[in-house]
């Protein structure tokens, strides 16, 4: 993993930011790896967590400019840091899914010493269907086929 990204995720964990990984990295958990342009992160937009996100980003050294802690409470705003392939998108809202449900059903994984929670397969499918782009629908098909493949015994 990229060193700067490790530092950013460390800052999230140090500030107890409640976040769930969604997108391509979650597809790897529930199907198989594929290339992705960014790391998509769904955050709890409660005031306390919004402040924690802001503090973590400030400590990391993100170019926050006129960004305020309250911006991380805004469901219509998305913040993108970095440039692909080392890029993080922070989202306060996902269509058809509330954060607490996503958090409760998520699973924890540790990669290269960094622990994060990943969205469940069912919530990933739900969010991808709500987004509805071609890549989202391909991801839904991949997760469903992976689930089906695990139920079929090879000859």
């Amino acid at each position: 993993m990229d060193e700067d990204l490790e530092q950013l995720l460390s800052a999230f964990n140090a500030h107890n930011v409640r976040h769930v990984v969604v997108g391509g990295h979650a597809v790897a958990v529930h199907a198989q790896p594929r290339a992705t342009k960014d790391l998509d992160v769904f955050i709890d937009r409660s005031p306390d967590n919004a402040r924690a996100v802001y503090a973590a980003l400030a400590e990391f050294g993100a170019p926050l400019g006129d960004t305020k802690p309250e911006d991380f409470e805004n469901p219509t705003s998305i913040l993108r840091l970095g440039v692909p392939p080392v890029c993080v998108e922070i989202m306060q809202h996902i269509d058809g899914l509330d954060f607490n449900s996503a958090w409760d059903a998520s699973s924890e994984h540790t990669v290269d010493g960094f622990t994060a929670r990943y969205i469940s397969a069912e919530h990933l499918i739900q969010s991808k269907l709500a987004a509805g782009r071609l890549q989202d629908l391909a991801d839904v098909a991949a997760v469903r086929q992976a689930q089906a493949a695990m139920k079929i015994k090879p000859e």
Partner: protein
Amino acid sequence: MDKTIRRFTDPEELKNEEYRYWQSVPAEERIRATWEHTIDCYRMKGVEANGRGLRTTLVRFQRT
């Protein structure tokens, strides 16, 4: 390395075998492979990964 040769007559079953393989390895390995695959794909396009952008580039989008 598994040197078993398996014959597939159904492309769907071939794909199922891929999924079974990836689901048989730890999730952490699949996540790590996502990073490696992503970095390699961008490198093939002539783009080197540069995490410094996390400290220099910020864009805020507004959902419509």
